[in-house]
C-alpha cells in the first residue's frame, strides 16, 4: 500500500475508533467507569473490525517514521483519557510521568497481538482484564479488579 493510500486508511480507521470511544466515554459516569466503558467499546470495535486494528497498529508501525507518528497520535489520545485517573491517587502517591504512555501502548500491543495471530474471538473476554490493567495504577489492584468486573449496565 502506498503512503497516501495508507494515510487514508489510517485516518478512516482512527475516526471510526475515535467515535466509538467518544460515545462510550460520554460524561455522566465517574472516571473509572468511563474507562471500563471505553475499554468494552474499544475491544468490541477491535473484534468486529480487526482490519481497522491492524491498520492502526501493526501496519502503521510497518510504515516507518510517518506511520509511527500516526500510531503515536493514537497512543496520545488514549493517554489523555487515562490522565484524569491521577485525581484518584492517594494524596502522597505519585506515578511515573510515562505511566499513561506505557499503559496505552501496552493495551494496543496486546490487542494488536491477538489480531495479528488471528485470535480476535478471544478479544471480548479480555475486556475486564484490560480495564483492570489500566485502572490498577490509579485505584490499586483490588479496587481496579472490582470496578473492571462490574456488570455492564449500558
Amino acid at each position, binding site marked *: 500500500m502506498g503512503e497516501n493510500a495508507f494515510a487514508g486508511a489510517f485516518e478512516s480507521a482512527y475516526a471510526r475508533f475515535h467515535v466509538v470511544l467518544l460515545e462510550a466515554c460520554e460524561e455522566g459516569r465517574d472516571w473509572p467507569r468511563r474507562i471500563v466503558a471505553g475499554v468494552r467499546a474499544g475491544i468490541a470495535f477491535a473484534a468486529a473490525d480487526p482490519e481497522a486494528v491492524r491498520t492502526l497498529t*501493526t501496519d502503521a*508501525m*510497518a*510504515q*516507518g*517514521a510517518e506511520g*509511527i507518528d500516526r500510531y*503515536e497520535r493514537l*497512543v496520545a489520545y488514549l493517554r489523555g483519557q487515562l490522565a484524569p485517573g491521577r485525581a484518584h491517587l492517594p494524596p502522597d*502517591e505519585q*506515578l*511515573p*510521568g*510515562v*505511566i499513561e*504512555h*506505557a*499503559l*496505552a*501502548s*501496552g*493495551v*494496543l*500491543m*496486546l490487542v494488536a*497481538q491477538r489480531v*495479528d495471530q488471528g485470535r480476535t474471538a478471544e478479544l471480548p473476554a*479480555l475486556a*475486564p*482484564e*484490560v480495564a*483492570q*490493567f489500566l485502572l*490498577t*495504577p490509579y485505584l490499586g*489492584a*483490588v479496587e481496579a*479488579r472490582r470496578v473492571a468486573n462490574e456488570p455492564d449496565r449500558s
Partner: protein
Amino acid sequence: MASPPKHLMPSAIGRDPFPHEVVVEHQRERVIEAAIEVFAKRGYRGATVGNLVSTAKVGINSFYSIFQGKEDCFLAVHDQIAAEAREWMVAAMPAGAEWPQQATAVLGALLELIEQKPLAARIALVEVHTAGPAARSQHERCLDEVTVLLRGGREHSAVSDELPETLEYATVGGLAWLLQQRIASGEAAGITKLLPEVLEIVVEPYLGEAATAELIGRAVKSPGS
C-alpha cells in the same frame, strides 16, 4: 632448514588461502556488522542489497551465497542482536538473587545496552516492525522471553490473585513502545536515566509502592549492582 607446517604454506596462485567455510563465515560476519549500520541509518525499507554489499565490501554473489536476500539478512542481524542482548542481560543477573533484584539488574542492563549500542537497539525495537511478518514473529518471541521473566514477580506479590492474566504482556508491550519512541527520536543516549520509572511500571504491580521505592532507591544508589 625445516619447512613451515602445511597449513601455513603459501597457497597456489589464484586459490583461496583459507578453507571455504572460514571465508564464508568471515564474509557473513562482515555483512552482519555492516547491515546493523545500514538498516539502522537507512531504515529497513530504505536499505538495498547494494547498500549492504558496498558497506560490507563483499561481492553481490558472495552476499547471495550467504543470504537469500535483504529480509533474510535482516532476520540474521536481528537474531544476532537478540542473542547478544540475551547474553548481556543474563550476565547482569546476580547469581542466586531474588526476583526483584534480578528484574532490576536485567532492566538496568537492557537500558545500558541501548545506550551503548543505539544502532542495534534501533533495529531490534524500531526497524523490526517494518521488516515483515517473519521479523515481527522474531520480535514477538523476544517479548515473550521478557514476559516469562516478569511472571516471576507473581511469586513475590501479595496481590497475585488479583493480577490480570495479561499483565506481563501488556507491560512488556508498553515498555517496548516507550523505549522504541525514545530510540526513534534519537534519545537513546541517557536512556539509563529512565530506570526508576521503568522499575515503577514493571515492578510495582507485584511489590507495591513501598517495596518498589526501596528497590529504586538501592538501584539509583548503586547502578549496575
